[in-house]
C-alpha cells in the first residue's frame, strides 16, 4: 500500500519540467522532497492532483496500486489524495464550514445526508486542536487570512478529510516559528499507520518538527538522491551545490 510515482514526465508547452520522477511513499511513512526553487517540486504536487495546466508525457501515479492519472481532480481527491496548497485560493462568500461540509458530502453516497450535529462537533474539536478560533467557521475560505491562518486552515481541511495520502506543498513558507510549531503538531497528530505524507519544502526547519523517514532531493525535474533525515541536515549546512555536482557527474 503506497503512493507510487513512476518515471513521471510533465511539461508546460515546450518546456519539460518533470523529467522522469520516481518515488514511493508507503503508508505510515513521511517522506520529504527538498530542492531549490524551480527544481519542479511544486509542479510534481500539482501534476499528482490533476492541475489542468500541465501536459503529462509519460509515467504514472498510483494510489494503492491504482492509477489516478485518468481521473478528474475531484475524483483523485475522493480516491484519497490531499494536497495542502502553497498558495491556498480564496473562495469569496463560501464559509469554511460550508466548504468542508460540501467536501465531506461529496464523499457520501448520493442519497445520504451528512449528520450536521456530528459534523460540527468534529469540526470544532479539530479547530481547537489546531488553535483555529471558532469564529473562523463563518469566515469565507482564505479570504483576508494571514499567511499563517491560510496554512492552518489547510491542515484543518486535511484533518477533516482524513486522506490516505497527503502532499504538503511548502506548508512552512511564510510561517513564523510559533505558527510553524502549530502546523507541525497538527501534521504529527495526523501521522498514522494508514496514512502516507509527502512533505515538499525548501528549508530543513520544518523537518526538525515533522521528522521524515526518507528525504529525497530534487534537481532539475529529477530525484537525484534519497536518504534519511541526516540528508536534510547536510543540505541545510552545505547547500545544494554538492548534490547538483554529484548529479551532473552521474548524468
Amino acid at each position, binding site marked *: 500500500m503506497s503512493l507510487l510515482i513512476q518515471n513521471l514526465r510533465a511539461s508546460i508547452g515546450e518546456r519539460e519540467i518533470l523529467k522522469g520522477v520516481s518515488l514511493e511513499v508507503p503508508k505510515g511513512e513521511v517522506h520529504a522532497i527538498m530542492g531549490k526553487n524551480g527544481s519542479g517540486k511544486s509542479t510534481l504536487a500539482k501534476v499528482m*492532483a*490533476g492541475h489542468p495546466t500541465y501536459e503529462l508525457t509519460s509515467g504514472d501515479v498510483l494510489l494503492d496500486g491504482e492509477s489516478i492519472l485518468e481521473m478528474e*481532480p475531484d475524483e483523485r481527491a475522493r480516491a484519497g489524495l490531499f494536497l495542502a496548497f502553497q498558495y491556498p485560493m480564496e*473562495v469569496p*462568500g463560501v464559509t469554511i464550514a460550508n466548504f*468542508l461540509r460540501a*467536501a465531506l458530502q*461529496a464523499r457520501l453516497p448520493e442519497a445520504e445526508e451528512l449528520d450536521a450535529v456530528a459534523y460540527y462537533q468534529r469540526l470544532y474539536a479539530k479547530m481547537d486542536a489546531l488553535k483555529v478560533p471558532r469564529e473562523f467557521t463563518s469566515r469565507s475560505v482564505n479570504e483576508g487570512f494571514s499567511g499563517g491562518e491560510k496554512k492552518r486552515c489547510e491542515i484543518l481541511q486535511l484533518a477533516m478529510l482524513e486522506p490516505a495520502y497527503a502532499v504538503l506543498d511548502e506548508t512552512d513558507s511564510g510561517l513564523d516559528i510559533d505558527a510553524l510549531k502549530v502546523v507541525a503538531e497538527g501534521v504529527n497528530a495526523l501521522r498514522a499507520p494508514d496514512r502516507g505524507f509527502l512533505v515538499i519544502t525548501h528549508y530543513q526547519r520544518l523537518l526538525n518538527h515533522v521528522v521524515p523517514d526518507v528525504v529525497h532531493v530534487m534537481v532539475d525535474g529529477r530525484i537525484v538522491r534519497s536518504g534519511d533525515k541526516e540528508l536534510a541536515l547536510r543540505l541545510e549546512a552545505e547547500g545544494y551545490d554538492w548534490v547538483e555536482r554529484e548529479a551532473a557527474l552521474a548524468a
Partner: protein
Amino acid sequence: MNTETKHDIAIDRSIGDFRYDIDYEFDAGTGLSERTINYISDVKGDPDWIREFRLDAYRKFIDKPMPTHWASHDLDNIVFDKIRYYLSQGTTPKRSWDEVPENVKRTFERLGIPEQERKFLAGVEAQFDSEAAYSNIKKAVGEQGVIFVGSTEGLHKHPEIFRRWFGKVIPTGDNKFSALNSAVFSGGSFIYVPPGVKVKHPLQAYFRINAESFGQFERTLIIADEGSEVMYMEGCTAPKFETTTLHSAVVELVALPGAKIQYVTVQNWSPNVFNLVTKRGLAHEEAEIKWIDCNIGSRLTMKYPGVVMRGRKARGEVISIALASDGQHQDTGAKMIHAADETTSNIVSKSISIGTGRATYRGLVHVPKHLKGCKNNTECDALLINAHSRTDTYPTISVRGQGNACQHEASVSQISEEEIFYMQQRGISEGAAMSLAVNGFVNDLVQQFPMEYSVELKRLIDLEMEGSVG
C-alpha cells in the same frame, strides 16, 4: 482546461415549464387597437376616468419610439400585432382555493403557492394570465384595516385612496412600456396599510402566464400610511413557448412619513419572455423603500427600480441580483432621485453572466444642488463565467451642491481556474465547485431575502455543470 468550451451550465427552470389547457371566457383577440382597450374596459366595467386614462395612454404608447437608441435592439423583435392583450375566465378572484377552476388550481398547487400561504404568508394573490384567480388575506390582517385586493377591485371599492396615487409615481408617458401598461393594465395588487400597522408576515403575489403569444400587464399600487410597515413579495413563471411572450408591469409604491415598504421580486420567467417593467417608489419624510430584486429568467429584462426621496431623511435602497445565461440579457439597475435634505440611498447590484449571457447595469443617482446632507452608496459587482460572457456598467451620477456625498464602487471578476481546481482538490466536482463559487458571490445579498425565498433562490442558482468527462 478550456473554460470556454468545457462548461455547459444548465439552470433548473423546469419548475414553471408546464401548462394546462384553459377555456377563456374573455379574450380580446390578437393585436392592439382602441377596440382592444374598449373591450378590456367593458369586461372590467371600468369607470369612465379609467377608460379615458387607458385611451390617452394608448396614444402615448403609439407616439413613443422604441428606446433602441440606448437599449437593446432585441426590442425590435416584439411584434405588438401578434400579442394577445387580455385573457381571463372572469374578473372576480376566488377567496378560497376550492372555488378556483381545477386546472388553474392545479397550476398553482404545482408551483407550491397554497402551501406557502399556509406556512408563512399574510395574504396571497395568484394571477393567471390577465386576472387574479385567487386573492385572500388572513383574517387577522384584514381586521387591522389592511386592504389587499386586485387593481380592479381597488379602483372600484377604494376610489378615494386609489385615485389619489394611481399614476402619480410613474406618469403614463414615463416610457413606452409604462404607456402600454397604462393602456391595457389588468391584475396586479392594490394594497393599503393604515397608519401605524406593521404587517408581520409578507403579502405575496404570484404571476403566472399560461397562454401562448400573450402579454401580461399587471398594475400594482402599494400605499403604506404613516408609520406603517409592509413586505410584499412577488414570484412569476411561464411555460416555455417558441413565440414571444410579453410581460410589462407598472409598480408604484407610496411610503407616507415614517412608513417602510420592502418589495421583493424573484423573476423566473421562461426564456421567451420580454420582461419590461417600470417600478418606482415615493418616500416621504423619514420613510424607507427597499427594492430587493432578483432576475434569473426571461429573454430580455429591462428594469430599474427607483426611489424618489421626497421627504427629509427619506431612505431608498435597491438590492439586485441578476443572472444572465446563454441567450439572455438582464438589463437592470436602479434610480435614486434625492429630492429633500438628508436623504440617503444605497444600491448594491451583483450580476452573473454565463456563456453568451449579458448583464447590464444602469444606474441613475440624482442629487440637485440646493440639497444638503444627502448620501448615496453604489456598489456593482459583475461575475463572468466564460470568456463569451458580457457585462456593461452605465452609471450616471449627478451629485451637486455641498455636503452631499456619493460613493461608487464597481468590480468585474471571473471565477478562476485555480479557484475551481482548489475546490475540486477537496473532492468537490467541477459543477458543484462552480455552483458554490456563484452562490458565494451573491451570498451576502441572498441573505437579505426572506428565508423562504433565499432557499428557493439558492436552488435556482444551483448550476448544474457537465464537464467534458462522462
